[in-house]
Each structure stands twice: as C-alpha cells, then as structure tokens.
C-alpha cells in the first residue's frame, strides 16, 4: 500500500462523509472496497469488505472503544468517528453520552448481562403487530384530503416513537412529550454547531422524566421494559434509564430511516410497489433487501482492537480504532451477485443491515415488523404516490443516513 493509495482512500472516506454525497454514497463505497483495509490519517482502520467485516464482528479480540462508549459513538457513528477518527477525516463531532451506560457501548460480560435482562422485558413477537397497525392506520388516515405529504414528518417519524414508547411503558398521555425530546437528541447526532445546547437540555429532561417513571414503577409496577427492568435486582435507576434511552434512540432513528429509505426505494421501483399491493407477503424478503440495499446504519465506528489482528493481508495493531463500512460490505460483489440491483426476492441475503455478532441489533424483530407493516400499508393505501424530489433532501448524518423530508404527491387515500 503506497502513501498515495492511502491518501486516495482517505479522500474517498472524506467524500463519503461530505454532505454533498449523501444522496448516493454507493459509488464511493465501491471505491473504498478496492482497499479492504486502510489506515485513515488519524490512525483509525477502515474496513469495507463483507468477509473481513463479518470476521471482525465475530472476533473476541475486538472490543467496544472506550471513546465511543455512548450512543454518540455507537450508533451516532459520525459522532463516534468524529471523536476519534472522523474529525480528521471531516466527520462531524460527537454527541457524548447520548446512550452512555447502555449495553451497546459495553463488552462482555457486562454487555451480556444487561442485554439479557433487557431481552426478557422486550416484546418483539407478532403480538406487537396489532398496535403497530393501529398507529400506522391512524397516521395514514390523517393524510386524507391531502395532495402532498411529507412521509418523514407525517409517518416515518411518529410511528417508531409510538412503538418504542409502548415498549418502554411510557403512559399514553405522556407520549407527546417524547416526540420533541427524541427529535432534539437525534439532532445532536447531527452535530452542526448550535444544536448541542437544545439537545443537552432535552436529554436532561428526558432523563429526569424516565428516572421518575422508573422510581414510580418500583413502587407500582406497570407494563413495559422500564417497569420490568425496575423490578430486576441489582439494577440502578441510572442503568435502567440508560437502557431505555438507548432503545428509544437506536430503535427510533434507525427505523425512521428504514421506512423512509424503503418508501423512497419503492417509489424508484414502481413495479415493485405495484407488486407489493397485490402480494403483501413480498414484504418479508423486500425488507431484508432494503436492509442490504439502503442500510439505516451505514458505518459502525465503535470498535477497537485489544490485540494485533490480521485482516485480509493487513495487520491492525493492538489499540487501534476500527471503522466498519457496513454499507460497503452490503454491496460487496464478492458476497452479493449484482449488488447494486434492488431485488426484493434476493436469496441468501445475509446482509449486515442489523450488524452481526454480539451487537446484532437488539430490536431487529421489532424493526422488521415496523417496516413490514409500514410499507405494506403505504403501498396498499396511498393512491398513485409520486416522488416530488429525487433525490430528496437528506439529513446531514453520514452514519444514520436517511431523507430529512420525503415529499410525495398522492391522489388520495384508500
């Protein structure tokens, strides 16, 4: 690997992080794959091929970096990269502590213990479906009479907040308070100057609210994860709140993008949208293909090496930060034939849209069902939907990538 090549790849990484390329970073990811492992100018190692990322995510010599122990690094990606690697590469800065203290930022055994407890209080079987469908139906009903909608603000955003509030056990009447909080905190993941103060305040308010809820549940148990965890011995209120926050943010932000990217992709493939109307069962493989084709989390920067690790023909030394380019791996032609084609019936589709290994998406079961319900209902009920802007305006975050708005013209609601 020559210096020049390194510089070239660093340039590619910088262009991926550059907002100008948010709408279609995939040609850049293809460039990135040409050097499966490269050392960014700030010392972090960027890995972009499927096989190598897969191996690293199952490698116990890789841990979660202390520098990205919070959501800001873990899921915020751009934020985590900002703290360590991305700063030099031009990534936005961090939103420290957004999900700090939650298992996403931990290694085993602490990770396993907390995650196991959370699993036992998290409902993601088919039982959640009727509630989701009710919420989705209500949101679509409200579009009645409109000729133009913003699918992000009117649907993709509010649906997951309601779903996760239900999971956490937030009383219905308090749910409206969560929408602005989550929005403010998520804005912090897009760390342009000026956004941080509002985020910090919202974050503090939400913490306080959740802590109060947890304390109440300790006395008077209720429904949902917060109450369930509150009843577990040896878990502090702070730990319960941290877990709840992480699930809210991770579960919300990614699902918004999954739904919005999904509808965008369907509108770009009208024949598939048409098929989905007549064959609702197509939604199952279709959502998997979406997770591969437009993964809501594009980069995972939260790992570091605990020892020297050989990847492909490179050696990543002990103590190095690692940036995993999941979006690049999902389009790796050595793993997925014709990777740039959206094929809702793709076989052998073991994508990295939910990661793999021990940090495999905790809420994957929930997210899958949300996306399935959302896209099926949108396909069924929106009359003649058309994209009004292609590409739509994107949110700045390169890691949790998705449209900020998705303006769509419709002829009505069925």
């Amino acid at each position, binding site marked *: 690997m020559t210096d020049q090549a390194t510089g070239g790849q660093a340039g590619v990484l910088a262009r991926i992080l550059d907002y100008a390329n948010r709408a279609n970073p995939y040609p850049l990811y293809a460039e990135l794959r040409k050097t499966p492992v490269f050392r960014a100018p700030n010392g972090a190692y960027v890995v972009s091929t499927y096989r190598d990322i*897969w*191996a690293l995510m*199952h*490698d*116990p*010599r*890789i*841990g979660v970096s202390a520098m990205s122990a919070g959501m800001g690094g873990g899921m915020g990606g751009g934020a985590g990269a900002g703290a360590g690697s991305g700063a030099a590469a031009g990534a936005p800065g961090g939103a420290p502590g957004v999900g700090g203290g939650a298992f996403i930022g931990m*290694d*085993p*055994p602490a990770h*396993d213990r907390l995650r196991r407890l959370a699993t036992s209080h998290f409902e993601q079987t088919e039982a959640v479906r009727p509630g989701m469908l009710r919420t989705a139906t209500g949101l679509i009903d409200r579009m009645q009479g409109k000729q133009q909608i913003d699918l992000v603000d009117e649907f993709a955003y509010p649906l997951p907040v309601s779903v996760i509030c239900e999971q956490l056990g937030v009383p219905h009447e308090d749910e409206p308070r969560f929408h602005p909080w989550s929005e403010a905190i998520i804005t912090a993941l897009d760390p342009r100057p000026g956004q941080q103060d509002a985020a910090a305040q919202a974050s503090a308010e939400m913490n306080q609210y959740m802590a109060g809820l947890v304390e109440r549940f300790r006395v008077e148990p209720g429904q949902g994860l917060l109450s369930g965890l509150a009843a577990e011995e040896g878990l502090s209120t702070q730990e319960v709140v941290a877990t709840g926050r992480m699930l809210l943010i991770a579960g919300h932000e990614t699902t918004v993008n999954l739904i919005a990217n999904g509808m965008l992709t369907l509108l770009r493939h009208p024949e598939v949208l048409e098929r989905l109307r007549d064959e609702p069962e197509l939604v199952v493989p279709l959502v998997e293909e979406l997770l591969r084709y437009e993964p809501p989390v594009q980069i995972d920067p939260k790992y570091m090496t*605990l*020892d*020297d690790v050989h990847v492909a023909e490179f050696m990543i030394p*002990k103590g190095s930060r690692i940036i995993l380019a999941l979006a690049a791996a999902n389009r790796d032609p050595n793993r997925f034939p014709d990777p740039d084609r959206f094929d809702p019936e793709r076989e052998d589709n073991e994508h990295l849209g939910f990661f793999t*290994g*021990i940090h*495999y998406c905790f809420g994957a079961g929930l997210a899958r069902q949300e996306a399935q319900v959302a896209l099926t209902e949108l396909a069924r009920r929106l009359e003649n939907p058309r994209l009004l802007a292609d590409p739509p305006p994107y949110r700045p975050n390169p890691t949790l990538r998705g449209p900020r708005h998705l303006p769509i013209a419709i002829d009505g609601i069925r």
Partner: protein
Amino acid sequence: MSPAKGVFSADGHVVVVGASLAGLRAAEALRKGGFRGRLTLVGDEPYEPYDRPPLSKQVLSGRVAPESTALPQDSGLDVEWRLGAGAVGLDLAGKRVRLADGQDVSFDRLLIATGTRARPWPNPTEAALDGVITLRGRDDAARLRRELDAGPRRVLVIGAGFTGSEIASACRSLGLAVTVTERAATPLAGALGGTIGAVAARLQRENGVDLRCGVSVTSLEGDDAGHVRRAHLDDGTTLEIDVAVVALGAQRNTEWLRGSGLGAGPRGVACDAGCRVFDMYGIVTDDVFAAGDVARSPHPLFGFEFLALEHWSNAIEQAEVAAHNMLHAESERRPYLHVPTFWSFQFGVGIKSVGVPPLGEEVVIVQGSTDERRFVAVYGHAGRTVAAVTFDQGKWLEFYLDQIERAAPFPPQYRNVAQPEVRQVLPAEFPDPVVPTEGPMIVRTGHSPTERAWTLLPARGGRA
C-alpha cells in the same frame, strides 16, 4: 458446475440407502447437480425424512407434535421411495441391494447413509418392559411423550450424553422428577471431557436433576403387568421409577454390509475424504459412497484420523460432497473438509461446539466464566487449537472455527473481551476410550479404513 462429460448426468440409477437427513440432502444435491436418471431412496422407517434434533427437545416438552417434524423437500425431487423395508444385504459384484421385504434393488451408484440407531439396553427381557425406552426415531419420541404425559413418579435417564441430558431437561421443564445416571465422572464427558462436563453437572443439579455420576444401573425391574417400576444401581441403591430412558449412545447401522466386502464394521463405513467407500482391503471403490453418521473418513485437519461424526451439519455437508463426487470425474471431485460443529439446548443453556474436543488433552477458558455458565472453552492438542465449546456464547464460534482451521497455537496468547484474569490450562479429562460412557458424538476411529476389531458394548451383567 455441469457434470463432466459422460459421467452420470442422464442415465444410470442411483440408490440411496437411508432416508433421513443425509439421504434426503444427497438426493436433493444430486438433482441440483444435474442428475436426471433414476433415483431411489430406501428407508427402514415408513416415514419420509424427518428432523431428529427436535425429538429430544420440543417434541418432549409438547411444543411440537412428533409427526410435525418432516423435513422440507425440494420440489421436483422425482424420487422412488422404498420406505418401510430397510436394506439387509449388499451384493457388490452384482450391484444389488437386498431389502427386508425380500426384494432386490439394482444400482449403478450407491450411497450408504444408514446412520445410527440407539444402543439398546443390554438385557433383552428388561428392555422389553413397558416404560423402558430408547430415543432415536419419531415413534420413540411419541412413546416417550405418552409415558411423560402419564405423570410418572420419577423418570430415570441412563446415560448423560447430549440426548440423555436433553431428555432430563425436557422432564424438568415438565415438572417431572428425574434421576440421571452416568458411568463417567460427569455428564457429557465423552463429548466435552470431564472438566467442562463438571459445569454441565452443576447445571443439571441446579435445575433439580438427581444426577448420579460414577454409577451404573445393574438391572431394571418390572411389576406384574410388565411395566418398569424399579432400577438397581451398582452402589446398592434402588430407585422407584415409572420410566427408564436408555440413552447409551448410538450404534452404526452397518450389519447389513456384513460379508459385502466393504470396509464396514461397528465403527462405521470407511471412506476416503471424497466419500468413496473402501473395500475390506483398503482399496477405494468406484461406485459406492457414504455420508452422514455412518461414514468415517480421514480428516486432513486432524491428522488424517478417521472420524465418524454424529452431527446434523455433518449429515448435510457430507451428503452434498458425496453427491457432487458421485456425479463428477476425478479431476472435479471435492474433498470433505467440514470442521465438525454441533449444538445442544438444555436447561435453558445453548451449548455449541466446533472442531474435535475429544482430540484435546487440555482445555482453557478464554472468555467468560464457568460460574456464570457463560463461557468459551478452547481445547488443545500438541500445542495447537483443535476445538472450542461455548455455553451461551455461540456468537463467537466463527472466530474459533477460523483458529482451528489455521491450527492456531494453544494455549491462546491473544487478549480478548471477557478474558478471565488468569488463563488456567486444565486437563480436558476425556474418559479412557476403552471405558464405555454414553458415547461421544465425534468418534475417533483410528487410522485404518478397515479396522473392524473394536466394538463398544456394555460389559457383561448389564452394566451401563
């Protein structure tokens, strides 16, 4: 890849003896590989292929009915089923398989996939008592399920291998009193060694199993109606029981090959790394192949020792290699390089393994802790990593698989997550192979393809 010219694409008759997982997957692979000739599947049970792992788990706990375990089949398989009459003989020169119903089936190529059966209780009179059960097939599971439904006072499980342990686990989940006896010092000793077996012992006891190691059942006693009611142990105790499950491991179904001239015996059917069966002189045959539990083949990663693997994934992958090689000329054949893997679920813990633990002399916990029942144990032989076993840490297995394939040094020197403060290398404590235990699921069967002297039978007097 299309079949090589002239090699078995349109004509010819392939007979697969054994209609379980390996046989079915081989048939599917033959069709996928382009074979258009006649394909016959011979099975001794009257059922089309079904899945066995659920029989000791979900079927016993009542979540799945025994008849709901059928394996999915590719459409367009176009198979002639010969079910309900197993093979009883092989005429190699005449290329004919003789069936139990007296009929002959001729073949151009033969795949032997007759698998294993449960080792029976050695005393036939006691074995015939009502409530004395072995578990291998669908009918066995249905029978055991009926016995458990009747609310027995106590279930005795004889042998604490994986099957025995899973049965005990199912009994506990049904709230039944259960005693497990095991000749070795711990459960799972043959598969995982005594050191890790001791963890399994604690797991059983914590879950309310009356586990008795280092003892044997000497006899089973029935009531006037011929139902088992008591078991006598060699430590002088007597147990009041209503069900006795005999879980003493498996025997290979090779008797039908006696006198056929093939290198087959109690240790299995010897074949090369391409699944081609050896004859009794160690010469490889052209038209006879073997796959699944019944096959033993040399493994290049493990010193070319012949291994017989009683694993689900082995049945599938070896069947696919056998099918490929049946259709292809020499230059296009594939070796069977599968690293053994298996899993078990018992007492709420998922146990998984890669490599060949019984090859290991030493073991070290590299991740987690045995106290918490969440750990990764790595096995070493002669300074290299040969196996890894996980309790509720299965997501790391791929890494260890890679370490085994690379013949990584043992004990491991790297730093990793959840690393114990001290990495203590312990003896693996596998029982002496001449001492019969419940039987490991990976059987090291030596270096000779035609070795037939070795048998594993309980000692006289019905000790088990």
